């Protein structure tokens, strides 16, 4: 916790009024919501992009097969242009799920864009008293960051309804494993990940709270009350559809705002890179070089190609929970502790 970030949080609260007018809770170790048991209810809501009832069927069916009940939110099938309903509809649906004691976890149906438009009008007071798992990634990074920074509650960075295979029996092994990792995480299994070592990795052992998500989304909340603090933490980032120059600029932003200097460890997930417009415009550095340049001289371990991101290989990660990252030349593991 540094002073600058603290002041940012306080001034944010002072400026905006009702939504942030609580005293920010600044957690040392976020609280872990209760794990789910058979028969518990998972709510599905769309706080960002538009999704149809049909599109959530595979997730609905499979999670029911796992033994959970499913509550489908009003926003599923609702549409306001690109959004899953108006800001008010998305807010109200999420609010109801945050407050409903019978709902034990909330799966965001898909990402896209929109969480940031409602985050400050949500009332987390009931949720903070009775935390539950919020599940999603990409645009949902906003919610993970908010829960971590302001409310001190762990959450699940994972695939959403639109990533479930239409036919579970035909799912590829990797796809099945990543979907099953959601169930493992929600039911309280200690998570463990083994990663293929990448030649650009920096070896070492780190322990810390896991935070992170989509790099562009993290950049877009910098300076806001939900901006991540990263000191002493294991940061993971992933992104899709960005040019190398844009990734370079975002890493400069992280570095220049003091978010890379005091990490415990750094995990680089999948980056689907938008190709340079022409060979004349070649950026001249690859992803690994871009990142290693920014963390040159920092002592912490770094691993590349971690299975998280906008890709099939996207395992559930518990944000706000302590993990141990071990990066060795021949083996890379991340273990929940």
């Amino acid at each position, binding site marked *: 916790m540094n002073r600058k970030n603290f002041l940012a949080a306080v001034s944010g609260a002072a400026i905006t009024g009702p939504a942030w007018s609580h005293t920010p809770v600044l957690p040392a170790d976020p609280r872990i919501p209760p794990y789910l048991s058979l028969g518990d209810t998972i709510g599905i809501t769309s706080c960002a992009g538009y999704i149809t009832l049909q599109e959530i069927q595979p997730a609905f069916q499979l999670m029911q097969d796992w033994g959970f009940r499913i509550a489908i939110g009003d926003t599923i099938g609702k549409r306001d242009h690109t959004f899953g309903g108006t800001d008010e509809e998305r807010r109200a649906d999420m609010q109801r799920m945050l407050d409903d004691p019978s709902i034990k976890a909330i799966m965001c149906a898909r990402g896209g864009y929109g969480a*940031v438009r409602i985050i400050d009008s949500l009332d987390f007071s009931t949720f903070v008293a009775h935390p539950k798992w919020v599940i999603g990634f990409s645009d949902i990074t906003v919610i993970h960051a908010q829960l971590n920074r302001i409310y001190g509650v762990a959450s699940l960075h994972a695939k959403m309804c639109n990533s479930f295979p239409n036919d579970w029996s035909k799912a590829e092994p990797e796809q099945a494993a990543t979907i099953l990792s959601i169930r493992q995480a929600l039911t309280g299994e200690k998570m463990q990940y083994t990663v293929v070592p990448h030649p650009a990795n920096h070896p070492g052992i780190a322990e810390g709270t896991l935070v992170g998500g989509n790099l562009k989304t993290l950049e877009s909340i910098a300076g806001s009350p939900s901006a991540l603090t990263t000191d002493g933490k294991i940061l993971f980032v992933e992104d899709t559809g960005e040019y190398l120059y844009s990734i370079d600029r975002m890493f400069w932003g992280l570095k220049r705002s003091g978010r890379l200097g005091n990490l415990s460890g750094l995990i680089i997930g999948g980056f689907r890179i938008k190709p340079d417009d022409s060979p004349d415009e070649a950026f001249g550095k690859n992803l690994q070089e871009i990142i290693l340049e920014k963390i040159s001289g920092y002592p912490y371990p770094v691993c590349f190609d971690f299975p998280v991101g906008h890709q099939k290989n996207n395992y559930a990660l518990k944000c706000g929970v302590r993990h141990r990252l071990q990066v060795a030349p021949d083996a890379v593991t991340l273990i929940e502790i």
Partner: protein
Amino acid sequence: MTKRPPYLQPGDTIGLTCPAGYLPAERAQDCINTLHNWGYNVMVGKTLGSDSATYFSGTDEARADELQAMLDDDSISAILCGRGGYGISRIIDKMDFSRFRKKPKWIIGFSDVTVLLQHVFVNYAIAGLHAPMAGAFAVAENPCVASIREALAGTKIRLEAPVHTLNRRGEAVGELVGGNLTLMTHLIGTASDVKTKGRILFIEDVGELLYKIDRMMMQLKRGGKLDRLAALIVGGFSDLSDTDRPYGKTVYEIIRDAVAEYDYPVCFDFPVSHTDVNYALKLGIGYKLKVGKHKVTLEE
């Protein structure tokens, strides 16, 4: 109080450097000729038309060294950036502004140069010139290019903008800050981040998706950068694109909605942009903005 670098006199020297993207030398020839016609000497840096094979006009070191030399050279009275693109974020923290602080000079550019302009204003309270760069001089008799000449010679800036239906009327006085929206949000939380309270903020951008403009406006808003403005000036947002599922608002509607709860004057379609319409604006200097029913004026 913002320091204004000395205005230029005939015979003064303007340094031309490319601190970001690569620019072929021939693309700057009209610019060099025009500056000569205006009575200035031009010192052309090696980063212009360099043998760089990458996106950049040279290595970080080459770009930083040249910019540093021009900042430190007392015989150079202004520095015109050849083009933007991307690259100043990579060198800004390597620059030593100690000599420049004592002997400020006009730095001219926009887009990626927002980083440099905002950095020197935030850290050293020195004004800069948000204006077209070398490539713009190829357009014959471009009044926006002429506006650079007037600004450098010390003519007070007075601009009129078309009346736009989304404008919010009113009058405001304040220092002008801002520039490219993407770069401005990129600088949030860094040592180059600008405070906007009581100031007139202007923004422009190019080539972004509509939802990303909304996300950046949300970022400014949630970071407390929109609620206490003296006024908002919205320039051009060119070459925008939309997602497969349309966003459902125009870019100006997005911006209007982001500031709907405040009551300061707002004007749209201000002639600052990535198109040919891009008048010079002195950043960090006080202005009076009048957004009226029939007329919009910005006066230094």
